[in-house]
């Protein structure tokens, strides 16, 4: 009956709103909004280049952690489930990075061969 305790919160009566939970959701919302606004401002104030792209990538990752961790609740799942999602995602990241490096070489090679 261990599972009975696990689900004991799920009685069919309406329970009152938990202000702490709502506050947490609103905090994450504010963080996502602010990060997007900063990205937007940086796009117009900073010169395009490796530094700006790095900042964009890092901020996008930060937003990803908040959306996946808090909104999708992955942070609160069991460890194995977190890794089952995170590990393949890391491989995907490497796939993207390696292909982008490959593209740069392709560009140089095409220029060298066809002028």
């Amino acid at each position, binding site marked *: 009956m261990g599972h009975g305790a696990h689900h004991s919160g799920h*009685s*069919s009566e309406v329970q009152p709103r938990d202000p702490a939970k709502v506050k947490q959701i609103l905090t994450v919302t504010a963080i996502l909004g602010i990060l*997007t606004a900063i990205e937007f401002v940086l796009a117009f104030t900073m010169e395009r280049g490796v530094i700006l*792209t790095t900042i964009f990538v890092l901020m996008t990752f930060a937003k*990803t952690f908040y959306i996946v961790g808090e909104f999708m609740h992955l942070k609160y799942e069991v460890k194995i489930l977190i890794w089952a*999602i995170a590990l393949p995602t890391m491989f995907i990241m490497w796939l993207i990075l390696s292909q982008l490096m490959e593209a740069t070489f392709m560009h140089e090679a095409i220029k060298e061969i066809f002028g």
Partner: protein
Amino acid sequence: MATAVIDEKENKALWGGDAEPLKASYGKLMMWFFLLSDALSFSGLLITYGFSRFSHDTYHGLIENFTASTKYWPVPEKVFTHIPFFHVNAPLVFVGLMTFILILSSVTMVLAVEAGHRNDKKDVQKWMLWTILGGIAFLSCQAWEWTIFIQGSSEGLTVTDPDGTIRHIFGANLIENEYGPRLFADLFFFITGFHGTHVLSGVIINILVFYNVSYGTYERIGTYEMVEKVGLYWHFVDLVWVFVFTFYYLV
């Protein structure tokens, strides 16, 4: 009989074989693995975009002096400069607005899930409805953006064909466009289109879930877990847009 019903309710998270792998219900776990596979599809598009962009020349020079050409990849902030009803130069403002709409609809979805945990049918209905509205607003914005992109500017782009004929290109299609290389518009249609299709299916699924909530289906089963599952999908779609916003529009 009454006891049997209660037992079934208490153990509904158990899979066949009376176990609950990874402490998650079957449906939620499968949604996670589906999203992982969907992430692979979107990564394919992201790689294609990066590959195409990196194998074209980049625009060197001041952004203020940028003019479109099929010879180099365009600067997105010089392409997406329109907002509805006003004839002003507002680079990326509309895309920013779309991003906020989608993030907000993600927030209302979290609130719907939270209300579901409390068995608060009225609240679930309210927040699901806001989420659906957000999704429809986003899709409408995208329809407008596509229209502007396809119609193009009144000046267009002047190109010289290999045989010497001078032509004007207005707007964009899959063969040529006035903004830059052919692949720029192709990938715009493909990436935002694929994402838009996801939003559209999300809205349809949300409407179905909203109907079930109103009909009392989840109240009768005793759990609003379906709201959680569709929530996972909706947040993923939001997340993909975060990536599209950064890598297609900003970089």
